[in-house]
């Protein structure tokens, strides 16, 4: 669970995780928070990986992947620290992991109360179109922060997870080209429980453009179909 200044929402999120998935080991990657995120997470019974400075979500995630790989976990799930994701759906993601290496919990097609603004939806459509062009598949939610990974994918991501913002799209197409099986599962999604959204509009536009350009440039790489690495 990557967390940046989420001390306000973290106790409730950790509490729900412990109640609904008591068998799970919770690791919070504190991405250089300036509030009490690390202390709150520790008090909530999570293992805390405190980064000395802010690496961005991609860096925090890779830290988590490396931790999972080093500690011999067979599978892992990424959950947001702001309470948007329902821990009850983790079992659902893991179930889908039987036939896939990467399972994305999609906010759309679910039954939650999640809505996005018009600009953002337009940008998401454009991104979706670009991805369909490259992969021939439709992904309904490319930026979801609720995803499950199996061991081979954890190993792959622990070395190669992209570091820049909106890394999930790059990661998705990277995993696709590397021959991993990707599945989407509709999940219920709630509006943020607290904290501020992580990006402003103009910045968001820049990142959408950057990601689209990046994946288009990377499109020369051919998918290694049939590989199960």
């Amino acid at each position, binding site marked *: 669970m990557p967390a940046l200044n989420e001390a306000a929402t973290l106790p409730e999120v950790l509490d729900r995780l412990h109640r609904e998935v008591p068998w799970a080991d919770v690791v919070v990657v504190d991405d250089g928070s300036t509030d009490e995120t690390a202390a709150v997470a520790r008090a909530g019974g999570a293992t805390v*990986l*405190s*980064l000395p400075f802010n690496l961005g979500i991609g860096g925090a995630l890779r*830290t988590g992947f*490396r*931790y999972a790989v080093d500690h011999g976990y067979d599978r892992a799930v990424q959950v947001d620290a702001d309470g948007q994701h329902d821990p009850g759906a983790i079992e659902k993601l893991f179930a889908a992991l039987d036939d896939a290496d990467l399972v994305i919990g999609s906010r759309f097609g679910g039954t939650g109360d999640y809505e996005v603004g018009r600009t953002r939806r337009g940008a998401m459509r454009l991104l979706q179109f670009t991805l369909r062009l490259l992969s021939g598949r439709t992904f309904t939610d490319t930026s979801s922060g609720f995803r499950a990974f199996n061991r081979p994918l954890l190993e792959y991501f622990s070395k190669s997870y992209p*570091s820049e913002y909106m890394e999930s799209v790059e990661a998705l197409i990277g995993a696709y080209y590397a021959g991993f099986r990707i599945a989407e599962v509709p999940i219920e999604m709630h509006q943020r429980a607290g904290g501020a959204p992580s990006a402003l509009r103009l910045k968001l536009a820049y990142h959408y453009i950057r990601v689209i350009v990046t994946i288009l440039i990377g499109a020369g790489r051919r998918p290694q179909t049939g590989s199960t690495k």
Partner: protein
Amino acid sequence: MTNTAHVFVALTTLALILFMARMLRKHNFKSKYTLLWLAIAVIMGTLAVFPGLIDNASYAVGVDYPPAAFLGVAVAFLLVVVVQYSWELSRLEERSRVLAEEVAFLRAEQELLSARVSALSDEVAP
């Protein structure tokens, strides 16, 4: 080039050479960078003292306006340097990222160990 301009350029490049030498001595730069800039400064100095060199070189490659040849070479060189810096910067960023991860792992490990140690010492010393 007029005499005033000539003197001005010569003095500027002399200052540049002295500045680079100073930077090298104080180890402010890695010597590979200082050597690069020192070489540039020496080339500039040579050209400032013998302006005829640029003219001849420029006519030799078929450029009729020598300042354009000089500027063209300068821009191309700076472009190469900047691209190289971008590459270097990406590499350094990646390295600091790995270091940050290692620090986080070590911190977590250290916390775990000190918790165990204090639990043990509680057992030993009543």
